Structures are given as C-alpha cells and as structure tokens.
C-alpha cells in the first residue's frame, strides 16, 4: 500500500471529477431517488435521465424484459419536459456536492439547440451529454448512426453552449469510430460509449413481442464485451476523453474499461441489481490503486493498448 491516498480525480473535457465513476443516464433518475440510500455526493458525476423539450408520456408497457444476463428496456423517454426539470428536479440534485451532467434528447437539431440553451442558461448543469443514440424513439438513433448528421448536430449545439459537451455514441453502427471522429471534429469535448444495443424478445406462448414497443435497448453484463470493444476502438480513433459504459457491474469491470481507454466510467443497469454499486466501485478503484502502488487512477487510462 502506498502511504498517501491515490488520486482518483479525472478531467472530462474541462469538467473536473473527484473520481471517474458516474451514474449513467436513465438508470439513476434525477439522483435524489438514491440519496436516501447513500451519499450521492460520493460519485464522480450524475448523468440525469434524458431530457426532452416538452413533456412526453413514454411507451406503453411492458417496458422492460429480462434476457440472458441482461435486460431490454423501452421506456420511450417518459418525461416532464425541460422546464419542469430545471424548476423542480435540478435544484434538488444541486443540493448534493456532485457535478450534474444533463443528457439531452431531441427530435431535430433546433430542439437540441433549444435544450442546450435552456440548460446552459439555468446555471445548474456542469456538462451536457447529447443523446444521439436512443433506440426507443422514432428517429432517436438516426443522428447517431450517420457521421454527417452527428457532425451537423454537434456543431449546432457547440455554438449554443460553452459547457463541456459530451456525445453519447450508439453501438448500432458498422463503424463506431466514424461517428466518434465526426463528433470530435464538430466540437465534442468528450464521448460516451456506449448506449444500449437494439434488441427484442418474443413471448412464445402469446406469439407476440414481449415489449410494448416491440424493440428495446439491451443493457447489463450481456453487452459488456461489445461496449469494451467500442471503447477500445474509439480511444484509438480520437484524442478526447472517453466515458466508458455498458454492463459494468463491479470494480473489475470498471478497471477493464479504464484500461481500454476510458477516462471515466458510467454505471447503469447495475444499480437495479445493487443500488449502492457505484460507491462500491469508487472504493474498489481506490483499493486497486493503493494495492498496486499507483499515485493516480489516470495512470491506468488506456494502458492495455501499450
């Protein structure tokens, strides 16, 4: 063990985090849902559920179905709308000492721009994450599967905000690096990889799709190898920090992503299995660094490439 405590802090496109563990968008609500269980201020950052400009009802149930070592979800962005989030949700979360990353989800470029302006002006967001990869919304994934559209969107939002800008990449593409490069060239300060994989499941008794929305996003341990491969490729393709996510269940999984090139990690579905998992991973990373005599967690970023 090293005598001084290892430095877990990392920097994501100008946003300084006290440790690299984030709660991923959509699995952690607006943060406060979990505040009763543990000090959410112990997390590196909280990415709130994808915000839509206007209130939305979401998809019809069932919205979730289990698959081998994973789950499919098709929530469909049930949402109170941007103004309600700024007025009611963010002030509550802002009482905790943790950076807030707002995940933005629009239907068109001008919607993303309007969202970015609102959250920049409100002064409560520390960074913005562009959700260009939601599989549960008509056209939701269109931006994220086309390099030109991704570039156009990122450029437009870039002009509308001076907050650190993160683009969340979809794995449902032939070459994720094309989209990654396009987002970075257009001004994205960092990239998140990955969003869920598009999937489905059929009830053989009723002979119908199990999800109300037919298709949904696959998450959980089942997708970890795919996510890790994406992070590896994106790390090699761009210079900006990568936030790795997809099936992270414990410290060892988080370390794999960091070694593949992630500067920070997002913990998502694991919260449903173990609601305190993200703070346990923070402690686990601290322990790993201590046991291996590392002064800083950043010494591990991308080490598996060398």
């Amino acid at each position, binding site marked *: 063990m090293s005598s001084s405590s290892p430095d877990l802090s990392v920097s994501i496109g100008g946003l300084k985090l006290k440790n690299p563990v984030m709660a991923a968008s959509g699995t952690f609500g607006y943060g406060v*849902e979990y505040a009763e269980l543990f000090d959410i201020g112990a997390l590196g950052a909280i990415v709130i559920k994808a915000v839509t400009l206007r209130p939305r009802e979401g998809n019809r149930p069932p919205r979730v179905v289990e698959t081998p070592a994973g789950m499919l979800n098709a929530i469909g962005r049930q949402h109170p709308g941007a103004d309600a989030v700024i007025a009611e949700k963010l002030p509550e979360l802002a009482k905790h000492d943790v950076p807030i990353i707002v995940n933005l989800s629009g239907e068109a470029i001008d919607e993303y721009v309007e969202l970015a302006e609102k959250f920049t002006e409100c002064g409560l967001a520390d960074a913005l994450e562009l959700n260009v990869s939601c599989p549960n919304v008509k056209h939701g994934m269109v931006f994220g599967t086309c390099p030109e559209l991704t570039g156009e969107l990122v450029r437009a939002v870039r002009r509308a905000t001076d907050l650190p800008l993160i683009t969340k990449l979809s794995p449902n593409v032939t070459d994720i690096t094309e989209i990654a490069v396009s987002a970075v060239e257009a001004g994205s300060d960092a990239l998140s990889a990955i969003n869920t994989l598009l999937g489905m499941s059929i009830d053989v008794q009723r002979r119908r799709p199990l999800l109300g929305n037919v298709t949904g996003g696959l998450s959980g341990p089942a997708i970890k190898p795919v996510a890790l491969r994406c992070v590896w490729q994106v790390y090699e393709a761009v210079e900006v920090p990568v936030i790795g996510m997809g099936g992270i269940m414990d410290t060892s999984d988080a370390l794999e992503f960091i070694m593949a090139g992630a500067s920070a990690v997002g913990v998502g579905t694991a919260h*449903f299995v173990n609601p305190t998992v993200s703070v346990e991973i923070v402690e686990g990373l601290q322990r790993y660094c201590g046991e291996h005599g590392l002064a800083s967690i950043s010494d591990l970023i991308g080490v598996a490439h060398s």
Partner: protein
Amino acid sequence: MVSEECRLLTNEPIAPDHHVMTLATSQIAKLARPGQFVHLRIPGTYDPLLRRPISVMLAERAHGHLQLVVRVAGRGTEIIAKTAAGSLLELLGPLGTPFPLPGEGGLTGEGDVLLVAGGVGVAPLVFLADALREFDPPAYVRGLFGAANEDMLVCWTEFAARCDEFYVTTEDGSAGEQGLITEALAGQLERGQARVVYACGPVGMMAQVAGMCREVHVPCYCSLEQRMGCGVGACLSCAVQAAGGGYVRVCKDGPIFAAERLDWEAIAGEQQ
C-alpha cells in the same frame, strides 16, 4: 428505505410453487407498513439479472422478522424459493406507497373494512388485517379469499385469524363456495356498511372489484404488480396506465393505488 443483507431463518414450501420465507432484518421489518414491498436480489447470479419485488406478509417489529410469500413464476423466483435457510439474501426496502389506513387519505367514514384476496395476493392483506386489529377504534374486518382450488388458498389461516368474518371461494369448489371471489364481494357489498375495500390479486379480479366499488361509491384500494427495474422510482420501467392518460409508477406511486387512479381496461388488456 434501506439496503440490507438478511439471514433467511425459515423457508417452508406451503403449496405447489409457493414458499413462506422468514428473514431476520435489522431495519426493514421495523419500517415496513402494510402494502409495501421488498426488492429481493437473486442470489449468486446475473442471469436472471433483476431483483424481484415481493410484498411483505408480516413484519414482527420486536424481533425484526419479515415474512414473505414467494410464488415461483419463473427462473428468478425459483432461485429465490430454493434458497436454503441460513443463507443471506439482499433486500432493498421497504419500498412503495402503503395502503392508506382508515382515518388516512380521507377514509373517515363509518362501517366495515373489506379485504379481497386472490391467490398469493393474500400476502399484503394479511399484513393490513394485522395492522387493523390494533386499530383504535377497532375496525371490523371482513376477509374474502378466492383461489383456483384449495391448495392455492395460501396462508389462509394467517388471513382468517386476523378477520372478524371470513369467506372463501374456489373455482373448483374444493373449499368454500364454488365460484369467483367477485361473486362473494357482490353479496358483501349488498349488505352495505362497507367503509372501504382493499384488494390484491390477479389484475382481472382487481379490475372487477374496482368497478363494483365504483358503482356503490365505496372507496377501493388495489395492490399492483408489474415487471420492475430499480424499485425506487428512477427508471420508469414499471409504469402502468393512469386514468385520464399518462402513466404511474408501480414501485413508487404504488404498488397501492386508489382504484379510480388507474385505467383498468388498459392495464388488464396488457396482461392478456
């Protein structure tokens, strides 16, 4: 709400695919109120992945003992039901909105309390009947219990012991009156003097109970089940259709709902 690792004290098979499990908790039993549930982690595996929401049947505050009825409905509940006494299980709870008790939530009227259980839906109503016994002034409780057959009248002695009057129906006539519990409820509602009806069972049953109560202007509260993710209101996986449009979360807004808050036709339609 707390997250606890709890020792499984006993695990008794009580009927085909039904187990009563008693767990030693430090906080959850003390905090639990009738209608609330615990989110149980499936031990030792990520396949299946998600926790299973299970209603609390009884909470002994003095010893911290929590009793659950687990019905084996798939691989997840099968693994939980096979857990040996002495093992540790991870519980998150108590979760959800409990039943409003008479005197709460505008339940100020006079009259009897009717509890309508269908099969394993009896669990939260045993807890509720237990709480009503200690009520001041005492509530007069009429318990109604329906199931497919005698075997599926799980925990009926626990339920009956806590009711002032007790009625049973089975679909095959192997116990009590042959028929559906909603037929027995019709007779009980005709008697009048019902202040409130609490129901838990299959969605089709509860939809009918809700409709019958609406006709005679008796408040009705139902306990819902749904595929669930987080259990704490964050992920919006367990949404069901609300009356007048939109969705409510079973884990946080429920599992107990005033019947008129829900769109029963839509909810029953999903489960067919």
